[in-house]
């Protein structure tokens, strides 16, 4: 896959604040690329620079091999995190307006197609103010993709959606990818990123800390995690030798082992305390990796 978007040593500051620090990134064409990172880490700033809404202080952004120009934004659909929309416009009029702003072809037909696809056909002649929050978010998603962009940037597309609408947007994103589009979305939902993204990029304090396929990222951390279910639950797992951290999910617990720790010894210790119903040695989840980097301990380590 060739690079649909390439960032080279891109830096952006706001006054004294360094928002993005010498960021380099290559987003392969046709991929679904997940942007993760804590709030204020630089995700939105990066997306805005790709959209040419913000201009980098230094570095270069290339779209399909060419230096980013203002006209390239017609090839990119962008859904910002803040869901501002003209609430007094009718759904169909609003979508045609956004589609025509992007030089979209067959905008009218595309609008009807997408309204049908996302189950909003009956709402096309209603004003936005009459729609629920979830419906408005779907309208905004359609506004982003209705012009048929080659690259789609979605800032937190799943926030605030119920499972049904989440599923609809997820299918739509995968449909765009199947149609050849390159999709970048930012999310705080690690399970969505794990399941949907070909590549995951994590930014923390303006710097890239993770970038690559999930498996490769997990390989960096090795199989240092035990996922187990016991009768005693989390209380039976306190103060186990060789275990750095216990992450309690209620029904199951994940134990992070210290370097050189033998999982058989951990199993033996737990068995001496309670009955074990399941025991699995796994790679760390994206959620766990995120916490290792951006959680309190990780922050201290990064800060140091």
């Amino acid at each position: 896959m060739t690079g649909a978007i390439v960032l080279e040593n891109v830096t952006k500051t706001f006054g004294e604040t360094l928002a993005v620090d010498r960021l380099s990134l290559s987003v392969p064409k046709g991929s679904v690329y997940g942007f993760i990172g804590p709030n204020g880490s630089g995700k939105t700033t990066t997306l805005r620079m790709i959209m040419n809404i913000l201009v980098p202080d230094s570095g270069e952004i290339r779209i399909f091999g060419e230096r980013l120009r203002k006209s390239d934004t017609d090839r990119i659909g962008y859904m910002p995190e803040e869901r501002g929309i003209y609430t007094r416009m009718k759904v169909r009029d609003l979508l045609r307006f956004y589609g025509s702003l992007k030089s979209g072809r067959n905008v009218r037909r595309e609008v009807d197609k997408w309204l049908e696809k996302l189950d909003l056909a009956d709402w096309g002649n209603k004003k936005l103010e009459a729609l629920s929050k979830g419906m408005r978010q779907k309208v905004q998603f359609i506004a982003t993709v209705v012009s048929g962009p080659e690259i789609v940037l979605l800032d937190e597309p799943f926030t605030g959606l119920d499972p049904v609408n989440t599923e609809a947007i997820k299918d739509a994103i995968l449909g765009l990818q199947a149609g050849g589009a390159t999709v970048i979305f930012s999310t705080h939902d690690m399970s969505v990123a794990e399941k949907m993204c070909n590549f995951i990029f994590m930014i923390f304090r303006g710097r890239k800390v993770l970038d690559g396929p999930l498996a490769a990222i997990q390989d960096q951390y090795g199989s240092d995690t035990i996922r187990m279910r016991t009768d005693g639950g989390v209380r039976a797992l306190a103060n186990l030798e060789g275990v750095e951290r216990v992450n309690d999910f209620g029904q199951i617990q994940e134990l992070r082992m210290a370097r050189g720790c033998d999982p058989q010894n951990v199993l033996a210790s737990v068995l001496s305390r309670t009955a074990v119903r399941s025991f699995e040695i796994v790679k760390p989840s994206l959620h766990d990796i995120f916490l290792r980097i951006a959680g309190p301990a990780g922050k201290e380590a990064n800060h140091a």
Partner: protein
Amino acid sequence: MRKVLKLAQREYIASVKTKGFIIGLILAPLMMGGSLIAFALLKDRVDTTDKKFAVIDRSGVIAGYLAEAVDKRNAEEIFDKESGRKIKPAYSVEVVAPDESDPRAQRLSLSDRVRRAELHAFVDIGRDVVHPGDDPAPAHIAYYAKNAALDDLRGWIVWPINDRLRQVRLRDAGIEQEKVRDLFFWVNVDGLGLVSLDEGTGDISDAKKASEIEAILVPILMMMLMFLMIMMSVPGMLHSVMEEKTQRIAELLLGSVSPFQFMIGKVLGGIAVSLTSSAVYVTGGILAVRTMHYEHFIPYHVLPWFFAYMLLAIVMFGSYAAALGSACSEAKDAQSLTFPVLIPALFPMFVYFPVVREPASAFATVLSLIPTFTPLLMLIRQSTPEPVPSWQPAAGLAGMLALTVLFVWAGGRLFRVAILMQGTPPRLSNILRWAFKG
């Protein structure tokens, strides 16, 4: 340009396809010309309740004549001759003997009667009104009422009193009034324009009679129309940009258009709204005036200038307003900036009267050449019968064009920086820094 036009089209439709616009289109001229219309409609509506007043005649020669004059007026003037309807109040006089021992107590007593509504007013005629001496006090006539300043009775009473004074003075001088009738024939001075030569026929055309409508009303109406057009679009731009910023619509738009295109789209939308309104008002106004056969008052030669000034004024003030709107993070910021935005358009309203009175004065000329005042003040000057040297409107327009370019440039820079900046208050220092340093 296509994107700018799309934005302008959306802005235009969003503004025009609302009940508020239609209602505003009707109400705005009513509000602005409301007092004139109300005056015209209600000027014949007078209080016809009869009024009684008292007279203390210290001269001894006026009260009787006044009573006769009142009777004559009641007989001849208070009923409409055709319909027989009462159109004015009847007056009646109560002659009160002067109390020279305590005139102040007498005036208090009569004032109390006015307060109790037994009298409408009372008049105290000084002893020496017929032949005033060196001491002016006894030669005065005083009128006491609850609202003496705006009292029709006071306005009327002056005439019979002075008629009587003239009679008595002539008699005392031994002159027969019939012989000096011409002495009191008042001659008016007719106001006329200038005589001019018709270049087509070579004839000398007669001067037109100067009219207050042409000299005052037409320029004021043109100025009000221009002010209305600015008011109908410019503050709206500030608030609409502020709303698009605070409701986070701006970022979505900026994914498709540049901040400059965004701002210009807004301004063009505002121009389209103003052109629609002004077309309605100008066409409606011309038709109404022609229907009333006053078409000779329509300043057709000023209309092209009106539209030229209006277009530039809306781009100039609109880009300034849209840029300031982009610097607002909440509604109260926009409220506090609305007045400063309108000051350049409001200022000419405070100075229009001296400009109308003397449109060729240095004061009027200089002010009308200041670009932010040109749309209103040059328009006033051009709408008066006094001709304006042709270079002055051209210079005014050129000044406006130069300032418009500056405002659009600085506004575009301010807009680009401020539109995505949340939570930073629009202080003057920030605004200037964003506009000139980016």
